[in-house]
């Protein structure tokens, strides 16, 4: 029933659909209301980043069955320009697009596990995980 899903991120409407899908699964696996809100907010930021900074991408969504508790893992990937300096990109307030520069740094704080893989010309992959408590 809850097998892995893949969703495209090609339009503003897709970002909305990703938020709704993540919200549904987060509720289903029993995340608290605050944790649901956190993971949906992180998903919204990362989906928008793929759209705005890379011209689009996709998200792979997976429910994890941990030994003691379930979790939700989201893998956002794109074939955009990539990020030259990861540390800089993760600095609060740093943006190349006139944004607030909160998306990456903020998302990292909102989830339990955060992994960013990116290099110039090789696209970007951001993996986030939130565990039920």
């Amino acid at each position, binding site marked *: 029933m809850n097998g892995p899903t893949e969703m495209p991120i090609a339009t*503003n*409407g897709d*970002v*909305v659909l990703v*938020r*709704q899908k993540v*919200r549904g699964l987060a509720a289903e696996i029993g995340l608290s*209301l*605050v944790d*649901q*809100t*956190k993971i*949906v*907010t992180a998903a*919204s*930021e990362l989906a*928008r980043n793929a759209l705005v900074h890379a011209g689009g991408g996709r998200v792979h969504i997976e429910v994890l069955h941990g030994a003691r508790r379930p979790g939700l893992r989201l893998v956002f990937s794109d074939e955009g320009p990539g990020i030259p300096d990861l540390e800089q990109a993760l600095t*609060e307030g740093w943006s190349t697009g006139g*944004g*607030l520069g*909160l*998306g990456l*740094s*903020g*998302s990292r*704080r*909102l989830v339990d596990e955060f992994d960013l893989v990116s290099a110039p010309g090789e696209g970007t992959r951001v993996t986030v995980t939130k565990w039920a408590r």
Partner: protein
Amino acid sequence: MERVPILKLGDILIVSIQIDLDDQSVLALQEDLADRVVSSGARGVIIDITAVEIVDSFIGRMLSTIAAMTRMLDAETVVVGMRPAVAITLVELGLSLGGVRTALNLEKGVAALEHVRGTAG
């Protein structure tokens, strides 16, 4: 694209966001609201986010922009109905919404704008 209705109650404009807005619709709302403030001469704006499940950096920026923009147009904005989970998430995300006036609910929002009501010339 979705168009959010803007209601007028005396000198106050009321916007109640009831659906999950995509970014284009968020920008459209910002522009519609600026136009309406000017055309109606409203002195106050209430943005009701009771039904809004998440506020990310984009919506957060919209709220700050509307607050700043209406101030320049001689009106005051109050954001009402923020859910506790949204407030917690916003702070962790790093958005403080500085400069955005808030009230717990619509009633308190209207009360907060009492001083501007009925003063429009």
